[in-house]
Every structure is written in structure tokens, then in C-alpha cells.
């Protein structure tokens, strides 16, 4: 066990390497550049390939090619780069390609506020590319979680053969904290398909709607990986409505059917809470402080911290909706996850948005005070 004092960005890079990442392609962008820099130092020591590509589009495309080359791969960026990568993310979802994309959120839109934090990309993380597809989005709120959830992201990418987004923010990325790095982390290794090449049907669901294993190029599988809608063999199917529909449904349900298993939250003091904060990322920390302070003032407050954003953890929020009478969602955007919470709650409790723009995270006092605001 190693204990380091590092920021979330470095923790992401170390998590990636611990999870088996051996190919990284990135492009400098504030506030994510440190991830690329740390990878440039650490990855070659593992005989992994590090590239700084000519732009973010080249970065996402290179890591997709590398995934089919057999490597666990990732890239890291922030808002503007994340936007450029969307086509690639869509291709990854469409082709069942495992990759991890780290977005260290900063103020937007456009060039926005490069050196300050935000949570404005939460919807983009899910809906960023065109078309119907699904991604898994994990959200750390500390440097330790940046390490842990990056490892988890790689593992989920392998199990689900899907792009997984690690959505951090500038505060998590740049705050130095104690991070415990175990000797060995639990890693899902990539496995070759069980079938031999002659019998292998690359895009047919096996158990639980998931694909069996993943071949790499030049292992004799002769696989056709096509960004156009395809049948189970990879052959083009754009002219066949039923096959096209089935394919899109398969890649979406591959994730949504597992929403309950994927759920990942932490709870404090919710059993008897009359007011619940639902928070994620940086605001989860002042929210916890606020909930504890509220308790000291005699208010039954609690906190639900989301570590996964997508698929949205409907089931646990459903339970909170029945347990509590008021929910407040502090987030560093105009109020986006608030809408999802409101959707799930469906009127069973009052739901209030506590948005914050400008680049700074909510203070505990701001969150505490919001309990008495009627909106």
C-alpha cells in the first residue's frame, strides 16, 4: 500500500495504469493536462504507449484503434475537447469498443472558464453524440475516488464493452489529498471470445445481453468493426430496418438493463431524513458538511451522494422520494441533475434546485441556508 498526496488528476492517471491501461492518447487542455503529463511519464515505464496527438479527435480515434489492437486505453480532456470527442464516443458505443474517457469539467460554454470548475457537462456526458446509444458515467468527489472510480471505469468498460466516462471537475482534479494506492487492485482482464474464430459471431449477445469476450486484431478472427449499423456478423445493415433497429436496441439495453447493478451511491443519515441533499462531485463535500450542521441544529437532514450519474440511479432516488419530504440538488450548473431527480421523484416530495455558476463550489453555509428557501 502506497500513500501519496496527489491531486485528482494524478490519481486518475495512476488509477488508469493500475487498471491495466497501456495506451493513452491525449491533447493538452486546462484543467486536464496533468493527466496527460503524468501518463507521459508513467506509461512508458510500463511499456505502454503514450501519445500526444494533434487534436482531441485524433486522440479519441487513436485510442479506439488501440482498443481493437488489444490494449486497455484511455484519454483525458475537458469541455471543448470532450465536445470534439463525441463522434468517437458514439463510434465506440456503436461498435462495442471499451474505452475510458476522462472529462475534467470546467466552466463553459465554448472556451468558457478554463481554470475554474463546473458540472455543466452532465447531460453532454450522456447525450453528447448523435444517435441512440448509452454510456456509463462515473463521478468522483475526491482524489481517492478519482483513483478508485478510474479503476472501476476500466473494469466496467471491459465487462460492458462500452465507453465509460469518468466525469470529474477542476476542483477534484486540482485538489491535493491523501490517496491510498493498494499493492494490487481488482482488475477485469480482457478475455478472448470463448468461441473459436470459425464459430464466432462478434455482435451477438451472450448471457445477460452482454458480448462474450473481445478479440483483438491479428488473432485470426477476421472481424469487421463498422461504425455503420450492422448485423451480428458486422455486415452492413442500413438497408434492413429490422436488423438496424435490433442493433441499436441491443447496444442501448446492454447498459440500461443493468442500471440497478451499476448503481453506486453513498448515503448519510437518510433513514429518518426530512430533507435530503442529492449531490455528486465537488458539491457533495460541502453538502455533507451542511447535512451534519443541519443535524446539529435539530433538522433531520441527510445526504445521498451519487458516484454514478448514468444510467441514472433511479431506484435509490425512488426510495429517497418515499422516505423524505424535501430534496435539494446542489450542482455547479443551471440545474440539470435536478431535472432527473424531479423526474424520478414524480411529485412524491418537493424537489429544489440549488445551482451555482461562476466557477466556485457551494459553501456549506449556502447549502444549509437553501433548506429554508422556498423556490
Amino acid at each position, binding site marked *: 500500500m502506497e500513500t501519496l498526496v496527489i491531486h485528482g488528476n494524478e490519481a486518475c492517471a495512476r488509477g488508469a495504469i493500475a487498471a491495466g491501461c497501456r495506451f493513452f492518447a491525449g491533447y493538452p487542455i486546462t484543467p486536464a493536462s496533468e493527466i496527460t503529463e503524468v501518463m507521459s511519464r508513467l506509461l*512508458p515505464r510500463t511499456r505502454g504507449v503514450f501519445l500526444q496527438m494533434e487534436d482531441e479527435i485524433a*486522440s479519441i480515434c487513436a485510442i479506439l484503434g488501440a482498443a*481493437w*489492437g488489444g490494449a486497455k486505453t484511455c484519454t483525458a480532456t475537458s469541455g471543448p475537447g470532450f465536445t470534439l470527442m463525441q463522434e468517437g464516443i458514439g463510434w465506440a458505443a456503436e461498435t462495442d469498443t471499451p474505452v475510458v474517457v476522462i472529462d475534467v469539467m470546467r466552466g463553459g460554454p465554448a472556451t468558457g472558464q478554463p481554470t475554474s470548475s463546473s458540472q455543466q457537462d452532465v447531460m453532454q456526458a450522456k447525450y453528447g453524440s448523435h444517435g441512440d446509444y448509452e454510456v456509463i458515467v462515473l463521478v468522483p468527489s475526491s482524489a481517492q475516488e478519482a483513483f478508485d472510480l478510474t479503476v472501476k471505469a476500466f473494469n466496467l468498460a471491459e465487462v460492458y464493452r462500452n465507453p465509460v466516462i469518468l466525469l470529474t471537475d477542476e476542483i477534484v482534479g486540482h485538489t491535493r489529498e491523501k490517496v491510498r494506492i493498494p499493492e494490487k487492485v481488482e482488475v477485469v482482464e480482457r478475455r478472448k471470445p470463448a468461441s473459436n474464430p470459425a464459430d464466432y459471431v462478434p455482435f451477438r449477445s451472450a448471457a445477460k445481453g452482454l458480448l462474450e469476450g473481445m478479440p483483438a*486484431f491479428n488473432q485470426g*478472427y477476421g472481424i469487421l468493426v463498422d*461504425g455503420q449499423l450492422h448485423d451480428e456478423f458486422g*455486415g*452492413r445493415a442500413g438497408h434492413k430496418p429490422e436488423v438496424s433497429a435490433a442493433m441499436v436496441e441491443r447496444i442501448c439495453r446492454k447498459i440500461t438493463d443493468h442500471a440497478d447493478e451499476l448503481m453506486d451511491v453513498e448515503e448519510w443519515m437518510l433513514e429518518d431524513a426530512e430533507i435530503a441533499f442529492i449531490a455528486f462531485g465537488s458539491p457533495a463535500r460541502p453538502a455533507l458538511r451542511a447535512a451534519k450542521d443541519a443535524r446539529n441544529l435539530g433538522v433531520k437532514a441527510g445526504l445521498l451522494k451519487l458516484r454514478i450519474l448514468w444510467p441514472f440511479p433511479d431506484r435509490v432516488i425512488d426510495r429517497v422520494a418515499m422516505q423524505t419530504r424535501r430534496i435539494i440538488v446542489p450542482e455547479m450548473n443551471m440545474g440539470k441533475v435536478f431535472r432527473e431527480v424531479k423526474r424520478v421523484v414524480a411529485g412524491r416530495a418537493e424537489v429544489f434546485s440549488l445551482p451555482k455558476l461562476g466557477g466556485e463550489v457551494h459553501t456549506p453555509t449556502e447549502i444549509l441556508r437553501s433548506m429554508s428557501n422556498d423556490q
Partner: protein
Amino acid sequence: MHPLADKYIRKRTLPLIFCPGCGDGTVLNVFLRAVDDLGIFKDLALVGGIGCSGWLPTYLQSDVLHVLHGRAIPFACGLKLTDPRRKVVVFTGDGDCVGIGGNHFIHAARRNIDLTVIMINNGIYGMTGGQVAPTTPLQGRTQTSPYGNLEPPFDVCELARAAGATYVSRWTAAHPVQLLKTIKEGIEHQGFAFIEVMAQCPTQAGRYIEGTSNAGELLSLLKKRAVSLEKAKETPPEEMTGKFVVGKLHHLTGKREFSQAIYDSFPQEKDR
């Protein structure tokens, strides 16, 4: 069925999607021969961009990526760098390679990464119905240049060479024998190999720019416009208007190849 088709083509995908008389088909034909002659099928990793020429590799039974418009080259870089023993060949069109893909093209050439990029140039965006391309001749009338193209076209071989490519050649679909030789050379070359194939497009460029969809006539035009390297040296510039040079235009050995550089540069234990 042709024995090479029987050996290498995914039967399920036949017949080929190409229009009657399309130059892409000839390139596929010649490529199968190159693969067979070199005996490299097991090591092939093919990448196709978006456009008619991007479909070419999808017909082979090898491992193939059919990727995003303009991005075949960075995908190919990922494949190459995860195992430099792979023979990575990219099939791209003129729009795919130097329109949307221009940035990736020049950087891969700059790095001198060992890829073989076969760009099939029909001077138009064919798959989408015949719009103007960065390689459309001046005054060419297309679906998006109805009054005549005002933009001078690229000389993509010049661009490749200036960017750092170490093998550059140009032939046409009317020169299958020379094409076979250059494709084999390009694949064997350790470095960025760029092969431009001027090709007829009977359906779009043929009808809109040349005024005929007759493949034979279009092929004949390609032959007429192709000037060999030796002849070009003696031809004054004015007489080269509307023509292009064919042959092996650039071949540099000994320049450090990128994937080798990456693998050679891993820090030793003692340097960590």
C-alpha cells in the same frame, strides 16, 4: 469466382457496392494480388474511412475497421502502435484524406509512422452525390460548384512529401501493373507510405465534371493525363495543365520510423 476473391473476400458481402466501371474496384482487385504475392494476410490490419473507397477493405476477410469520416489515419495509428508487426493499410478517398482528414494526414506523415495510405482520388465527393472536393479541378462543375469550382486543387503527393512522408507515389486505375508494384513497395516500406490512385468515377465526376459516364472513356482520359516522371522533367509547365505526374515520386529510407522510435524509447529500469 475469381480465385483471389474466393480466397480473400467475405462472400456474404458480394456483389461489390461499387458502381459499374468504378476505379475503386480495380484497386481492390490489385490489392488482393499484392496481399497474395506478399503473403501478409495474417498480419493485415485494414482501416477504411467514409466514402466509396472506405468500403474497399470491408470486403476482405482480414480484421477491418470501418471508421469515421476523415479519421482513418488516427485509428490506424492506434492499431499500428499497439503492435508494430501489423501491416496497417488505410483506404481513403480524396475528401476523406485531405478534406476533413487533412490534419491527421499531415501529422501522420510528419511522424513517419509505418502505415500504407492508399488514397483513391476521383476529384469529387462521390458517395454523397458529387459535391466539390479539395481535389476537384478548377472550373469543375459539381453539385456544390454549379458555376464552376473556384478553388485550386491540392497536389496531395506534394503535400505528403512536404509533411514528411518517406514513400510517395501516384498511379491511376488505368495502370494496374504499376499499381501492384507500388502497393507492394509501399507495404514493405518501413515508414509513412502514401499512394495516390487517380480513379474514374463514372457516376459523379464522370457525369458532372467530364461529361460522360462511360468508364472506358474516363479510363482513357486518365491515361492521357498521366505523365511519367521522366517525361514530366522535359515538359514545360504550361503543357502540364490538366495533367499529373505518375510514378514513384519520393522514396527515402533511413528516416526513423515512429512506432520503432516509441518502442525503442521505453525507459530502462535504471532510468526510472
